[in-house]
């Protein structure tokens, strides 16, 4: 244990943050919806076959999407974890790019792709089916598994596998008996994030599902916004909340069950074989690059050929927007930087408290910090509007509310990515340092921070990308027109007919992707060099 540092004080920061910006709003809105006859709506819903179908479909599609994502991300995680090759950092950064793509853009890219591959009708028809939904979920989420599992795997000493080979164990058996169990916590952690993302996925269900499919998330929105039926919406939000709590409890328990002690390997990584690299690149191309390339093609396609004039138009003030495109990108960046800092600080303190403070409260904190990811944007957005409306918390029109909402969604990433790394630290290292006279702070700095640095960098990258792309909860918060973000600007361009606006929207989508990729790359380069090289120190 890190004596002297009292986790309870550290825990107060994330607990307070969660309490004020998440629990208080959510409890306010749920309490409001369930007052009076609200509870009877809950029992009515339980007996409705349609509603049970919605609940079933919500968790069925989330489960299938998560399993498929984990399966498809595995080879890539292995490549990133065990091999060194040119362009590795670039590849890592590229995988986070889909996060910032608005669903309507991805939806049209997928539709175009299905069209070109003749998948839009017939036996292979994907258009407006559940498989289109699942395909898009894999596209959006593959990076979460790839990066989280990849970073954790990288820290595992391959010595165990080598010993198994020496003892004559086959490759597959070694993977199953030695590698997979050790990866368990990282897989469970990242899969739980993907699962929650798919549970609350919104645009993908509506746009790619073609209106015939409904999930809890889309039903909550439809009832609250279109039908003006807050009672049903709240009852559904409560069902969603309970299901998410149950799911998080199980997944957190799975992650704690096996603490894996990592032994850092200091050996340099080999180059991958040509077939491994090619196989992986082909897979990632199909899943990630094809939709992105379609999008790029659309951004340069103009009548009668190809041109970059849509991009040039972005530099000047686009007539249609209240501010220039550069200003919207700047707004997005500022929000993302604030949200990332908040998420890393809050999530980092929470993860540290959870590891070092093994009481009942730590479990509650661990559970609570995950919930923003699994709760409907409607619940959070309206909750903030209803709850944060009196001084000293009259924040409804505050410019801080948007990054705070973004960071709530970034925090679960930070915690889930940091926890497996923190838990993997061999306590003997800490004890040895303490025995050698290191102060508690120095122990944390030299041991904990150094070992989790990769995980911290990955989690910051995700918090950043999530903030850049988020517009669920924040679309419910009042915004000043001159503070519009790039995704919102993109929506507005796509809201009016005209080739000019559509072309500029596509170009903006590509710029947004490039910006995300570049920032993620910078975060990683900065993080890795700035936080120093740990291997020689220990």
């Amino acid at each position: 244990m890190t004596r002297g540092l009292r986790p309870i004080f550290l825990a107060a920061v994330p607990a307070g943050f969660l309490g004020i910006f998440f629990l208080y709003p959510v409890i306010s809105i749920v309490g409001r919806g369930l007052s009076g006859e609200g509870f009877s709506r809950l029992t009515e819903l339980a007996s409705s076959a349609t509603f049970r179908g919605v609940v079933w479909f919500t968790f069925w599609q989330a489960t299938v999407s998560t399993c498929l994502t984990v399966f498809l991300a595995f080879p890539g995680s292995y490549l990133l974890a065990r091999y060194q090759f040119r362009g590795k950092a670039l590849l890592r950064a590229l995988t986070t790019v889909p996060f910032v793509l608005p669903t309507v853009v991805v939806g049209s890219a997928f539709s175009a792709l299905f069209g070109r591959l003749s998948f839009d009708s017939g036996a292979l028809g994907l258009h407006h089916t559940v498989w289109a939904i699942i395909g898009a979920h894999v596209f959006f989420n593959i990076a979460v598994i790839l990066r989280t599992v990849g970073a954790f795997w990288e820290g595992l000493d391959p010595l165990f596998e080598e010993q198994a080979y020496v003892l004559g164990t086959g490759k597959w058996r070694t993977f199953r008996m030695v590698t997979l169990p050790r990866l368990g916590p990282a897989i469970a952690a990242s899969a739980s994030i993907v699962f929650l993302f798919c549970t609350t996925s919104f645009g993908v269900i509506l746009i790619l599902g073609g209106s015939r499919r409904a999930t809890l998330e889309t039903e909550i929105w439809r009832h609250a916004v279109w039908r003006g039926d807050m009672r049903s919406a709240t009852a559904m939000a409560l069902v969603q909340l309970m299901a998410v709590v149950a799911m998080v409890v199980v997944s957190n328990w799975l992650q704690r069950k096996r603490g894996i002690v990592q032994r850092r390997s200091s050996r340099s990584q080999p180059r991958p074989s040509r077939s491994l690299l090619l196989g992986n690149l082909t897979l990632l191309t199909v899943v990630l690059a094809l939709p992105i390339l379609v999008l790029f093609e659309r951004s340069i396609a103009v009548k009668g050929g190809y041109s970059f004039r849509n991009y040039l138009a972005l530099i000047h003030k686009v007539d249609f927007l209240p501010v220039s495109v550069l200003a919207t990108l700047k707004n997005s960046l500022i929000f993302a930087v604030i949200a990332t800092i908040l998420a890393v600080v809050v999530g980092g303190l929470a993860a540290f408290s959870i590891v070092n403070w093994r009481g009942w409260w730590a479990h509650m904190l661990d559970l609570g910090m995950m919930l923003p990811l699994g709760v409907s944007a409607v619940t959070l957005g309206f909750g903030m509007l209803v709850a944060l409306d009196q001084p000293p918390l009259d924040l409804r029109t505050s410019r801080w509310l948007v990054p705070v909402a973004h960071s709530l969604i970034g925090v679960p990433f930070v915690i889930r990515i940091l926890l497996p790394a923190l838990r993997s630290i061999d306590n003997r290292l800490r004890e040895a340092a303490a025995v050698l006279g290191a102060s508690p702070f120095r122990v944390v700095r030299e041991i904990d921070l150094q070992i989790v640095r990769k995980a911290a960098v990955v989690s910051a990258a995700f918090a950043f990308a999530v903030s850049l792309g988020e517009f669920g909860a924040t679309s419910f918060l009042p915004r000043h027109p001159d503070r519009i973000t790039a995704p919102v600007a993109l929506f507005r361009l796509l809201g009016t007919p005209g080739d000019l606006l559509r072309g500029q929207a596509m170009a903006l989508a590509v710029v947004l992707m490039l910006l995300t990729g570049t920032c993620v790359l910078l975060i990683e380069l900065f993080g890795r060099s700035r936080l120093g090289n740990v291997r020689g120190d220990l």
Partner: protein
Amino acid sequence: MPAEGDSMYFGLTTLIAFSLGLLSACGGTPTTGGVSGVPSTIVAAITSDAGSIDGQVVTLITHDSFRVSEFTFETFTADTGVEVELLATGDTGQMLASAIMTAGNPVGDVMYGIDNTFLQRALDAELFEVYESPALGLVPPDLILDPQHRVTPIDFGDVCANYWIDRFDDELPPPTDLLDLIDPIYEGLLVVQNPETSSPGLAFLLATIAEFGDGWEEYWHSLRQNKVAVTAGWADAYYGEFVAGGGERPIVVSYASSPPAEVIYADPPVETAPTAVMVDTCFRQIEFAGILAGTDQRLAAEALIDFLLSDTFQQDIPLNMFVFPASNAAELPPVFLDHVTLPDQPHILTPAEIETNRNAWTDRWTEIVLR
């Protein structure tokens, strides 16, 4: 959000507004600056209040597709001393739901953009304070849907089926009315939006209900047989399934002023729009502004409502939001007039009829078309 494209309102004028606009375009006295065009008594009313409201900041809540030219509100500030702060809160449905959530302790002072399909819900929730603007005299009476003046009409437009002109010829003439759309020769050509998730989708459903009465269910059975496609929102219909975005279907539910937008935002520039409107399929949407109950800046809010009906603001509306100004006095830009179509008799239902029946209608629609 999936309905991002929906809150773009396009439309057509009433005959009166149209002829007045034409009149002024053909040499009527051009109006310049300030709140000109509004009778001088109104200007006097505004300026006499100015003493008490000078220096106040009034907050205008809008939907996401609210757009205004750069210096429009500066005119208002110069005339009244009141500054305007804009806040956007999602599409119309989100904006209304947020306002109902915060009723009594509103985020702003005035809300703009509530339309006739949502109006009754807003009135039932007692969101607005009564205010009868002196400028209402310039608004055609058929736009004033609330006789108690809790809301003031600011603009209007129509949702209509649009078609891609090049895809039709002598062999396959363009469809003209709702019944054509169930004709087997137009099988598989139409894409509509889900009325449970999209504002134009709902408007189109309401058009068929206004046209066929109880027969609307049978009509939609036939549309389904004729292989109508359904999308969640406007953007995925127009840019996904419709020809404009590379899709295959040449008929889409959009707005009567989509053709002018196709010309104004064409790349490269074009002389005529590639799309045209089916004038007999239109449903009228009217957008209103109202003073939110609970405001502590009632006088400044009144002045803002008056300003929204002034020529300065009204003439700024067409090319920003692609709808028609409510005021008869407002001049319309030629590029808008040249390419917009005028439905003689758009379909309309009262806000009370819509609110009473919409959930039952859309439930039934879902059973007929999607299940």
